[in-house]
């Protein structure tokens, strides 16, 4: 399944998803209360240490910072122009810690477990007569159809490239949308035929991946 999840069995993988989310949320709030680069450097060392406990595959995930270098560089320049260079250093360090910590939760938690952990947040939907299972059904639908649409899109792009030589064009989007919408009508009919989302949502569980044997 498509996810940034990193397969593994470290202590972070075994920790409950709810706990990890709680710790990262509280830590992030606290990080906004401090302003000392030394604390940030200590936190950074801690977070990178956590990545290291995941092994070399974990350390490879630090590469996510590479995509942020330009953005963080621009922030630093903006601070430098405004005459707050050292504050800029603090800001960049804090952002790096926040991003790495949040990402650490995502790469060590299965999407299923993450969904399970946040399901209680949907309970208030019941007050409006809606099933709290509907968001889970929607998640499953997107996970099923996003790869399919990506496949349709790349096939259309190949055909377009063969015809015109150009790599891509906005002209591909309307036919993509029309094909997807036609398909969505079929899926809605199929859902109806199986008792509708309430019928499905009433069942014990909707899983985003096949149940482990």
């Amino acid at each position, binding site marked *: 399944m498509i*996810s940034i999840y990193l397969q593994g069995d470290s202590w972070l993988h075994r920790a409950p998803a709810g706990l990890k989310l709680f710790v990262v949320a509280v830590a992030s709030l606290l990080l906004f209360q401090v302003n000392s680069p030394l604390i940030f450097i200590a936190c950074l060392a801690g977070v990178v240490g956590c990545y290291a406990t995941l092994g070399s595959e974990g350390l490879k995930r630090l590469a*996510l910072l590479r995509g942020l270098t330009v953005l963080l560089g621009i922030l630093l320049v*903006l601070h430098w122009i405004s005459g707050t260079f050292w504050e800029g250093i603090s800001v960049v360090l804090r952002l790096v810690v926040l*991003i790495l910590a949040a990402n650490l939760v995502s790469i060590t938690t299965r999407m299923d477990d993450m969904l399970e952990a946040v399901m209680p947040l949907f309970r208030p939907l019941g007050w409006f007569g809606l099933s709290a299972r*509907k968001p889970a059904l929607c*998640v499953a639908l997107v996970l099923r159809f996003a790869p399919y*649409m990506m496949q349709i899109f790349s096939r259309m792009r190949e055909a377009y490239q063969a015809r015109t030589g150009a790599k891509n064009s*906005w002209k591909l989007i309307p036919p993509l949308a029309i094909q997807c919408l036609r398909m969505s009508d079929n899926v809605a009919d199929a*859902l109806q035929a199986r008792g509708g989302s309430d019928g499905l949502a009433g069942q014990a569980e909707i899983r985003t991946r096949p149940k482990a044997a």
Partner: protein
Amino acid sequence: MADRSLVHIAFYAALIAALGLVPPVAIPFLGGVPITAQTLGVMLAGIMLGPVRGGLAVLLFLFLVALGAPFLAGGRGGLGVFATPSVGFLIGWPVGAFVAGWIMRATPGMNIFASAAVSAAVGGILVVYLFGIPGVAYMAGLPLTTAALGSAIYIPGDLVKVVLAALIAQTIARGLPGAMLSRS
């Protein structure tokens, strides 16, 4: 909520994910700032689905990203993206789609191109930046004006997307008139 609406919401969320695959185009005369097709999907969700379903589709998309799906342009995903300075823009997306859908619904007499262009400009640029700029200012510890100046480099690209969103909406409406759910 009707099942059909549920499926439409899920399909637009998936469509926004698929548009994240379109390679970013760097426009030379705009200083080489890369523009991605993803916000185009956000504008279209509002324009095509109307306020509530459009907003929910974008919200669902962001929920999947938060759960760990690498659906943002460039294959990014997970909770980390909500800790970057751009988080305000992400929060602005569902609101922007809602406003775009609302304008679409409020202008039933106008032709689709004009109505969609106004919707995309107000919802997809004005509203999104209204959330995005304070987000940059807060996360990066910069004054609002500096944050606004820093974000302004993306506006020309967004204007291109407004025109594209309007063209696409018009083309879809011609090919599949029933798809303009915002007006039905």
